């Protein structure tokens, strides 16, 4: 157990500079952009004898700021998302590539190999949630900057929920409803598990490995599409299921998929994986 924590610590530590880089980039970018926009909005509203009073905009809230500049605020977030998606694969492949061949060490450790799988999973989750937390904190910082720059008469109040909703990408990544949050991130975790398992399949019987991996990935996609298709074709209605039952079935299918992915991945790690 303690060794698992040590492995997680190791995985987090080896990624820390990149993570800090992502965090710093996101923070600086979003803050800088806020300063620039806020100053601009303030300038727009400054009383000016030369201007027609009709053209001077009324007070605004930070929500408007965010929603008016979707791509700008979304950009660093997108970079983070893509980076993490890449690292979901790199976190494994980096151990095989290069002179290091660190995978030798990892597989030879006296601890159960399942720890390797779990520690990388835990590390990824930590990265994801730390970035999410950062974004939430940044929203507050953005509001603070906005309030600092815009005088009270140009400002409207905004609720925190509005802040989140202001940017489409952020709103997508941080659903307000806990149920939706669990749903999305639950599915995401299952997909992450599937990705891990596909990677491990590829790393087992090469070159047949890549075929296995793709076959597995295809099989794993059957779950979401199957669920959706079944809904679309009215299969559920014909079976006389209630909404709740459909939902719980879907949840069950996803959980089973996740469990299967993890079980298969760990099994491959123990039995077939090859340096």
């Amino acid at each position, binding site marked *: 157990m303690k060794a698992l924590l040590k492995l997680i610590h190791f995985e987090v530590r080896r990624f820390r500079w990149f993570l800090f880089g992502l965090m710093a980039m996101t923070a600086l970018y979003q803050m800088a952009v806020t300063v620039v926009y806020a100053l601009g909005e303030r300038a727009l509203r400054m009383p000016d004898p030369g201007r027609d009073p009709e053209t001077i905009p009324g007070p605004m809230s930070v929500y408007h700021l965010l929603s008016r500049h979707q791509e700008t605020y979304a950009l660093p977030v997108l970079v983070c998302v893509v980076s993490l998606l890449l690292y979901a694969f790199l976190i494994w492949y980096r151990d095989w590539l290069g*002179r290091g*061949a660190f*995978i*030798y*060490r990892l597989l030879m*450790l*006296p*601890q159960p190999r399942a720890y390797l799988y779990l520690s990388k999973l835990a590390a990824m989750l930590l990265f994801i949630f730390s970035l999410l937390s950062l974004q939430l904190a940044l929203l507050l910082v953005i509001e603070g900057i906005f309030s600092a720059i815009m005088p009270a008469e140009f400002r409207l109040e905004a609720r925190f929920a509005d802040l989140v909703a202001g940017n489409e990408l952020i709103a997508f990544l941080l659903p307000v409803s806990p149920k939706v949050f669990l749903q999305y991130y639950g599915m995401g975790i299952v997909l992450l598990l599937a990705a891990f398992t596909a990677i491990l399949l590829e790393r087992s019987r090469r070159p047949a490995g890549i075929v296995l991996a793709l076959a597995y990935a295809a099989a794993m996609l059957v779950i979401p599409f199957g669920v959706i298709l079944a809904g679309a074709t009215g299969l559920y209605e014909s079976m006389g299921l209630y909404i709740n039952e459909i939902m719980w079935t879907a949840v069950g299918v996803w959980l089973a998929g996740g469990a299967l992915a993890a079980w298969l991945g760990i099994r491959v790690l123990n039995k077939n994986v090859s340096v």
Partner: protein
Amino acid sequence: MIEIENLQKRYFRKHVLRGVSFTVEPGLITCLAGLNGAGKSTILKAIMGLVPVDGGSIRIDGRETALHLTGNRGQLNRYRALKVAFIPDRPAMPPSMKVGEALRFMADFYPAIWNEEKARDMLAFFELGEGERLGSLSRGTAAKFNLVLGLALETPYVLMDEPFSGIDLFSREAIADVFSTGWLEGRGVLITTHEIREVEHLIDRVVLLKDGVVAKTFDSEEMRLAENKSIVDIMREVYRP
């Protein structure tokens, strides 16, 4: 004793191992020799569970450890790790790690068998400093450090994959010297190497691999006593009849 029995391994079409059987006796230094691509490295990795084989059995001190037979379940990974130390032919640590960090890594994950004092002694013997980045070490120095990482683990068996390959003369001498020290004493050592001459006087037993099977096994001193032949002589007989 490590008992290898009827090991089989195919790579695509190539049938690399066709039923290899031999043993690694405790306390003796056994050399696994063979031509390039004979599968020596594969055998070591198979013992260590780094590579699955297609058939055969690998028993370490009586317990079956082959992946395909056991699924590596139970505490097998731990059992294997505590019994056998593997020294691969490449530094198996992230290049960005420093010498000291690598030592702490081993101490962290092998608390039961990591001998810190031995590691430090070996570090001094090889004149290695703690602050160096592993990626910046020369090939010879990296090989020596690799040895430290393996030998400081108190395991009854040690596997070494080409410890001399591609290494400068003086590093090779330093590594050969290790065989005379107490650091290997009492341990069953299995080494693969092309540089037989480097270790001719250090080896107790020889296992010759040819065409995927063991062509000959012998005790080097017995062979010298009985037939006045060196290890190289026998190898010439077997590989170039």
